[in-house]
Structure formats: structure tokens, C-alpha cells
């Protein structure tokens, strides 16, 4: 399959496909970060995670419409407002869901999977009733269009670089919050030993709620980024949920570094293979490779060594 291309062509192809994969990588990382917090830290399997992402995408879409209509002079900057709103909307819904549903199921992880699947069906139908079954697309501001000509044969889309930079910032922020802030210490204390954490005065219920909210909020930001690569429809989230779970499991459930590494590997493999064969075969081969590796190394790439 490489035979028809010269070496420099191949280099350019890999570089371009690599950057094309960056937006996918960003969406994967943001989705998977949220899921790694919820699944890796809390042990909850949130099948509705894709729907939280789509909520963020719809919020972005609405924000762009509002800005276009009422504040066209601010339109170039709408994306920043949209991201914050998406975070708040998805995070608030997440906290509500945690209060109403998840907190009753902490002792039954497999049942959280089924219950959140039910939730995802309800959310999908809600989106369909509210926003319509047709997919909506977001108009990008002018400064995000176009691409940067790095060399003669390599072009890098600007929105890709923007989303990429954003992802890096959010990842650093999440890592800071979880590993250095006192709240993050509380989260990890609750995860390690709920009873003991309660005994030393941590309000475990509140920590659970905010942790779940944080994970869902990040999914909302992922939805904002998602509007750049795809159109938003009621069922678009479902397409990503399995991939995202694989990213998290492949990376090692409790490791943020592993999540990033695996999101990078998966999105880049997928994107590079896609150039050489049909999209569906690229996906099949990527997924098969992940499943095969997971069968050999069930704990994922970066597993924490914990005694159980």
C-alpha cells in the first residue's frame, strides 16, 4: 500500500494525516478525560457520556446563533463563551444526574452501565424533540478557517491547532485540580477509602457530586470541540462512546497520562490508516488492534500498581 508513494510524499502524508488526526485526538482526550475521572476514579460506567458531549455541542451551536443574531461584532470570540457555557450546562446536568440516579448505584457498577444507557436514550429523544432530528452545523469564525502552510506539501488547519492548544490547557488544568489542589486530594481520598474519608470529615457525597459534574462538564467542552469536525445530531454521541471507553481502558483506567497516550495512539492510527484504505476498514483494524492488545495486557498501557 506504500508502494505508489515516494519517501518525501509519505513523510508529508503522515504529517498531514497526523495533524488531521489532532482534532479527533482532542475530542478523544477531552471525552476520555471526563470518562477517566468518572470511570477511573469513581468506578461509574457512564454510557450517557456521549450525550453530555452532544449537550455541549448543542450549547455551542445555540451560542453561535445568539452571537450571530444579537452581537455580530463579538462573533469571532463566541467560541470562548460557548465553551464556558457548555461546561456549565453539561456539568450542571451531570450533578443533577448524580443526585437523582448515580448515587444509588455506587455499589453496583454494572448496573450504572444499564441505568445510564437508559438515561442516554432519554437524552437522545429529548434532543430530537427540542432541536429536531436534523443535524446542525456550526459556522466557524473567519480567523479559525484556513490553514497554515508549514512547507510546500504540508498544510495544518488552524482550528485544529486551536483545539489542540485548548486540549493541552484543559488537560493541565484537570491534572492540577486532581493532583495538587486540596479538592483533588479529597477526591482521591474518597476513591481510595470512602468510609475513612468520611471519618476524617470529608463530605463524601458532595465530593462525588462535584467529581461527576466535573467529568460531565469536560465532556461538554469536548462537545464544543466536536462541532468543528462533525455536525451535531441527537445520536452523534453514541458513535463516540465505545471509542472513548476503549481509549480509557486502553490507557489504564486510573491513569491520566495513559488516557492521553492512548487517545493519541488511537486517533493517529485511525487517521493515518484512513489515508490508505477505506474509513471503515481503518476503524476495524484500529479497534481490533486495541482489543488484541487489551487481551494481552488487560490492565492497559499505564497501569497503576495497586495492591487489592
Amino acid at each position, binding site marked *: 500500500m506504500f508502494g505508489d508513494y515516494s519517501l518525501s510524499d509519505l513523510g508529508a502524508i503522515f504529517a498531514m494525516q497526523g495533524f488531521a488526526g489532532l482534532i479527533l485526538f482532542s475530542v478523544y482526550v477531552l471525552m476520555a478525560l471526563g470518562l477517566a475521572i468518572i470511570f477511573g476514579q469513581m468506578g461509574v*460506567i457512564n454510557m450517557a457520556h456521549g450525550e453530555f458531549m452532544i449537550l455541549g455541542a448543542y450549547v455551542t451551536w445555540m451560542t453561535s446563533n445568539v452571537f450571530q443574531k444579537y452581537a455580530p461584532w463579538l462573533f469571532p470570540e463566541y467560541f470562548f463563551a460557548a465553551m464556558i457555557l457548555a461546561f456549565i450546562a453539561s456539568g450542571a446536568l451531570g450533578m443533577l444526574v448524580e443526585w437523582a*440516579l448515580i448515587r*444509588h*448505584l455506587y455499589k*453496583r*457498577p*454494572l*448496573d450504572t*452501565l*444499564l*441505568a445510564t*444507557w*437508559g*438515561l*442516554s*436514550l*432519554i437524552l*437522545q*429523544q*429529548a434532543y*430530537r*424533540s427540542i432541536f429536531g432530528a436534523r443535524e446542525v452545523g456550526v459556522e466557524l469564525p473567519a480567523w479559525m478557517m484556513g490553514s497554515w502552510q508549514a512547507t510546500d506539501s504540508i498544510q495544518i488547519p488552524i482550528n485544529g491547532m486551536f483545539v489542540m492548544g485548548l486540549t493541552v490547557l484543559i488537560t493541565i488544568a484537570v491534572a492540577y485540580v486532581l493532583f495538587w489542589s486540596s479538592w483533588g486530594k479529597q477526591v482521591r481520598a474518597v476513591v481510595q477509602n470512602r468510609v475513612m474519608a468520611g471519618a476524617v470529615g470529608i463530605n463524601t457525597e458532595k465530593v462525588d457530586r462535584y467529581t461527576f459534574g466535573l467529568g460531565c462538564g469536560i465532556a461538554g467542552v469536548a462537545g464544543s470541540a466536536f462541532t468543528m469536525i462533525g455536525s451535531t445530531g441527537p445520536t452523534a454521541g*453514541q458513535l463516540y462512546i*465505545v471509542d472513548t*471507553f*476503549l481509549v480509557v*481502558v486502553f490507557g489504564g483506567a486510573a491513569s491520566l497520562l495513559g488516557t492521553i497516550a492512548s487517545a493519541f495512539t488511537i486517533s493517529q492510527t485511525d487517521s493515518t490508516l484512513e489515508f490508505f484504505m*477505506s474509513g*471503515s*476498514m481503518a*476503524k*476495524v483494524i484500529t*479497534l*481490533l488492534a*486495541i*482489543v488484541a492488545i*487489551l*487481551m*494481552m495486557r*488487560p490492565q492497559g498501557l499505564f497501569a497503576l500498581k495497586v495492591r487489592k
Partner: protein
Amino acid sequence: MIINSRFFNRSELIGFLTLALLLFVILPLSLDVFRLNLVAKYLTYAFVAIGLVMCWGYGGILSLGQGVFFGLGGYCMAMYLKLEASSVANTKIQSTPGIPDFMDWNQLTQLPFFWKPFHSLPITLAAIILVPAFFSFVIGAAMFKRRVGGVYFAIITQAIAAILTILIVGQQGYTGGINGITDLRTLHGWDIRTDHAKFILYFVEVILLFACIVAAQFIRLTKLGRILVAMREQEDRVRFSGYSVANFKIFAFCAAAVFAAIGGALFTLEVGFMSPSFVGIVPSIEMVIYTAVGGRLSIFGAVYGTLLVNFAKTALSESFPQLWLFGLGALFIGVVLAFPNGLAGIWQDYIQPRIDRLMAARKNPTFKLPDNSVANGAPAE
């Protein structure tokens, strides 16, 4: 613990006879052929649900990829029927006569090698059982030997369901793509589209369903079933007692896969086509819903749950298409939150004791009801 030496205890016998009466007598007499065929379609999912009772309810292995095995069985059957439907005489307008029409549309000039065995009915019938059994064995052996379980197993089986769907949709020339394998006509020369054939197929299916119920009940009552329950509750203790936990898990998973495949093959016969929309993640999870609603510990419950959810689905989506997903989602959340053991749990906890008390009171006013929850395999809280 009292182990019942009889094959069915009294209440199970009543359940068995009630279900037999319903499926063999009441439904065929009260429904027209169209509705009966719908019931037949629903019942094909009941095979999957019974398999899930074995592997999820008793073994504690939640598989979100039962659609894979349902699909494998269904596709095996569909390939045979399709080859029979595309004989040289039927397809002489094609550029290559004698191959299925979708292959011709995709510029294939030769039957792919893996289609060739499906010219023969005995090989097809064997493949319906053996192909899914082999696949589930490979998956199960790879996972359980490495002690992958629980959540991870669920996610990986889900990924496998996704992979198979993408593969079927992508390889249009070999599989019929997103439309699936359609336009199936005869089974070994016997037209399956007539009302008469549908009637007979319904009874064949119900007989097979009862065969599966008996097989599942047999597994449940033998030592194997006891070990499955023990494994679900305390896997390490079973391992320390010298049992090979992985092998028992593989067996339960394979049994569930074979049940699902039988259901899939019957589905193809009843409905007349097979497509990737019965293979992927969404149908696989819906199959888990049937089991959860019916009761993950009850074989009969799984059958009733399947029928009930599907009737609700048809009724709601016919009259209020908007509400169906709300209803299904709410049903699912409600069952998981309030009734983890589903309909069968409600029956066992609320209705059965009352009936027993009434019967006991009639016989002997001072009779005290024995607690039989452990013997029935209910999970310890």
C-alpha cells in the same frame, strides 16, 4: 441449603406449564398470522435473553455483545437462504448468474470462499451452532484466562459488536452492507413466506425455545449451575477450592452465545432478512434490557420480559413514536433502581408469598413459610 432434587419445583412447574399454555395454545388461537409472526420475531430475542440469564444472572458475566452471536447465527442462515434464492435460473439477468444480487452490484464475479459451504443445509445448520461457539470460545478463553472480567469484559464485548457491525457495513460486496441479506425465499425448496409456513415456523420456534429452557434449567440445577452462582458471589473462594474459574465462565459464555445464535437463525427465517442493525451495540444492549426487565435470575422471567418490552415497543412506537425512547429509558432506569431482579423479582417478593400464604392458610392455619430465596439463587445483599 436445600438442593431440590426434582427437575422443577412446584412453582417452576406451574410457570413452565403456564408459559407452554400461553405460547402453544392461547397466542396461536387468539392472534392472526401477522401478529403471530410478530410474536415469533419477539421470541427469537427470548433465546438471547435466556442465554443472558445463564451468563449474566447466574455467572455474573455481563456481555454487551450478544448481538454478535445473534447476528452470526442469523447471517449463517441468511447465507444459505440467499444462495438458494440466487440460483442460476433466478439470477440470469445478472452479469454473473448464480451469485447473490448484491455481489453482482459490487462487481464480484465469483462466490467468495467462505460462502461456498453454505450451499449445503447440514453444514449451515452445523455452522449456526459452531461458528458462534467457536467465536465465543476464542473471546472467552482470551479474556477469562487472563482474569479480565466485569466492567472490562462488558466494554470489550461491546467493542467487538462495534467492530463486527462496521465490518459488515463496510464489506458490502461480501455481506450485503447496511441493507443486509434480503429477499430470502425458500428453505430447502420450502417457501418460507406463506402464512402456512409462518404458522409452522412459529411452532418449530416455540418447541426449540422450550428445549432451550429445559437445557438452561438443567445447567442451573447441576453442580455447574451451583458453581456459577458461587463464582458470581465469591470468585476467589471458588478458585481456592480448586475449580478452574475460567473454564466455567467460558462454558457459560459459549452456552449463551449458542442460544443467541439459534435465536438469530430463527429470526432470519421468521422475518425473511438479516441486517447489521441486529448486530451492533444498540440491539445488544436492548437484549440485555429484556433480561433485566424480565429478571436476570429467572429463565421464564426473561421470556416474559422479552415479550413485554417488545409489545410495549411496538405499541408505543406505532401510536406515539416520540414517546418510545422516553418510555424505554425510564423503564430501564426504573428497573435498575427499584427492581434489580425485574418482573420475576416482583413476582417472587410480592405475589408468590401471598399465594403461598393463601394456600397454606387454607391447608393449615399455623403453617410457616420456609425462606427459599437462597435456594433460588438470589444474590446475597
